[in-house]
């Protein structure tokens, strides 16, 4: 007896078993660690280690006080065991003998790690026209092209460096978009953040290179709390890319980042992320808890902030890149692909808060759920009474693969004036056996069929990504879905 159905399925299951997370290795390196656990002393120690100003220490302590009074948000469509915040290491840095002047002084083990990840810190990247800041556990390792950028007045540095060298900018903008008490995780981040990136684009400047940060959690028990602050002055423009990976561990690692963007008059910031933290094994063990607050402030008129994200990793994703559209005629955009497989859970979306006149926002969200995963879109479009003639267009599409995955959409809309216009479209579809069979019957193999359907589904998002990111994202999605269709 030949059971054709079993045959196809078996082939896929075998592939599923063999599927690997290619960034799952860890690096053995001497580290400078602050004992696990969180209290005022930990924070003082972090601040001292980083030789920070008293402004920053006060900022941290205030955040810590707020955090202690808050509790973890429970409204998201996510289930996970309680996080023990005292079991986390809040500071873990590769031991550096002295301040580095040159890439050749970086520990070769570290360079090898980034090399393995496909992140070349050496000047080869010149060809790709991307300047990189690489963050390893808690500390920024190297920022490339600083000299080149400074010629045009662009500051691209690790946030630690910026805290010491540009205290005025830091004091003015840090916490101005995401206040320290904004939410539980942003408060935690504000108290303990260790590094991240800082960019400042001066007036009338188009940043000559794409800026990029690469985040890597290496330590098993350390959390990563990075902080990114980007300021685009009047008539300036910048493209920013962010990539993330982590080793494969059985335990969960916490990642709670805060990203703040400020766009002044006529300025434009485009922020793209390809998130590929380790997502746990196929039974849901291990993986990164990703609780991120990303928010952009369109402060000036005609300013524009655009978020593009491809979320493929993490065991839990809690993330709502948002735009505060304060300036008249300002624009916010959110383009997202969120893919979940196995036991991954994602609750992600955006908030578009319209305050200025003629403000416009556009939301295109594509959720793909496979395996036993849960994938939710959660969005808020809030048009205040002063935001006359504001417009929003939202489109939320879900794609289900298999019979055990779950897709949800929670759109909240609030309109407080009668001159605004809102459109919301949503669809749910499924890659079914019959579609696959159609491809196969025409001689097109399974992998190719899935790839074609997924990239067709995500087309609108991928066109928003910088070219090399788009190709990577396409590959990543196909890889992640390998074997999930039977």
């Amino acid at each position, binding site marked *: 007896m030949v059971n*054709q159905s079993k*045959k196809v399925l078996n082939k896929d299951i075998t592939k599923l078993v063999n599927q690997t997370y290619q960034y799952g290795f860890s690096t053995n390196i001497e580290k400078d660690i602050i004992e696990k656990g969180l209290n005022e002393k930990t924070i003082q120690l972090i601040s001292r280690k980083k030789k920070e100003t008293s402004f920053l220490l006060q900022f941290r302590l205030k955040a810590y006080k707020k955090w202690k009074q808050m509790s973890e948000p429970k409204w998201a469509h996510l289930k996970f065991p309680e996080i023990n915040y005292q079991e986390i290491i809040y500071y873990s840095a590769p031991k550096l003998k002295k301040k580095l002047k040159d890439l050749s002084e970086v520990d070769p083990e570290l360079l090898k790690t980034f090399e393995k990840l496909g992140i070349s810190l050496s000047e080869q990247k010149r060809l790709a026209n991307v300047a990189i800041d690489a963050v390893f556990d808690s500390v920024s390792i190297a920022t490339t092209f600083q000299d080149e950028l400074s010629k045009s007045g662009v500051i691209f540095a690790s946030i630690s460096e910026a805290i010491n060298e540009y205290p005025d900018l830091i004091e003015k903008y840090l916490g101005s978009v995401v206040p320290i008490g904004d939410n539980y995780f942003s408060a935690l981040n504000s108290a303990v953040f260790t590094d991240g990136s800082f960019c400042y684009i001066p007036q009338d400047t188009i940043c000559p290179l794409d800026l990029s940060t690469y985040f890597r959690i290496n330590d098993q028990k350390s959390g990563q709390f990075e902080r990114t602050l980007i300021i685009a002055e009047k008539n300036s423009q910048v493209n920013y890319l962010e990539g993330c990976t982590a080793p494969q561990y059985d335990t969960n690692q916490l990642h709670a980042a805060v990203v703040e963007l400020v766009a002044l008059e006529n300025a434009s910031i485009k922020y793209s992320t390809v998130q590929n933290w380790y997502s746990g094994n196929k039974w849901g063990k291990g993986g990164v808890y990703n609780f991120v607050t990303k928010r952009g402030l369109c402060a000036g008129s005609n300013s524009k902030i655009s978020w593009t994200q491809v979320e493929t990793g993490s065991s839990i994703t809690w993330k709502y890149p948002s735009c505060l559209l304060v300036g008249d005629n300002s624009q916010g955009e959110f383009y997202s692909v969120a893919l979940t497989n196995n036991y991954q859970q994602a609750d992600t979306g955006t908030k578009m808060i319209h305050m200025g006149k003629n403000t416009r926002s556009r939301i295109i969200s594509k959720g793909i759920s496979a395996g036993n995963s849960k994938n939710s879109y959660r969005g808020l479009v809030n048009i205040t009474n002063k935001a006359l003639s504001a417009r929003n267009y939202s489109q939320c599409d879900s794609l289900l693969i298999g019979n055990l995955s779950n897709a949800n959409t929670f759109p909240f809309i609030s309109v407080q004036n009668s001159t605004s216009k809102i459109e919301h479209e949503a669809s749910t579809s499924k890659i079914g056996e019959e579609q696959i*069979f*159609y491809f*196969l*019957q*025409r001689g097109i193999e399974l992998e*190719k069929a899935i790839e074609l*359907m997924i990239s*067709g589904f995500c087309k609108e998002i991928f066109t928003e990504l910088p070219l090399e990111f788009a190709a990577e994202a396409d590959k990543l999605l196909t890889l992640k879905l390998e074997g999930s269709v039977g």
Partner: protein
Amino acid sequence: MISKYSLLEIKDLQVSINDNEILKKLNLTIEKGEIHAIMGPNGSGKSTFSKVIAGHPSYSVLNGEILFKGSSILNLEPEERSHLGIFLAFQYPIEIPGVSNEDFLRLAYNSKQRFYNKPEVDPIEFLGIINEKLKLVNMSPRFLSRNVNEGFSGGEKKRNEILQMLLLNPDLSILDETDSGLDIDALKIISKGINNFMDSNKAILLITHYQRLLDYINPTYVHVMQDGQIIKTGSAKLAKELEEKGYEWLQI
């Protein structure tokens, strides 16, 4: 040279889905150059039969054998059967959102090229190939940029199936109710396409409810299927008789 093997030979085929036996000891042999028509009432197993030959994963072959060009294909994947020259024009061609017809057709064409170690064609070369075929089924090139079957009318979907058949040039084409839902003009176009395509090295298996299609395509044999078996085989005349007397006429 005359091959000693039949193109398709089906012996005592027993097939089930979800423990329901659909095909019961079905036998059929098709030689090159022949057109076979299978007729029969709803639920007699005609569509199941076509999908089983193409290797649909939902069906279990309990017993029997399917030989294509002399070798068993029961252990072959659907895509391998396709490469060997088996084509199924679906009764309900499925819509594939986000995938353009052009990409889909080129990928199918190149998959076959690759299988036979022939060079793959680039998009521009492909356009030349597909444009020739489009003319044969009276389709406008604008179909290429539309998503596969998405928003196509019933007739357009069926024409798209025939277009794919012409492109992939299979040895055995199984046309599952390709005539249903077509108006008379479309039926004429499709029939003409099929007749021009047919030659002495190929075979066609038509699955149909109605005799109408057989006014345009002349079958070598007509089979009547009922309850998972072929209960009568005859010439084209049999179809005419069925049309007049209904399937009841054959009930014993």
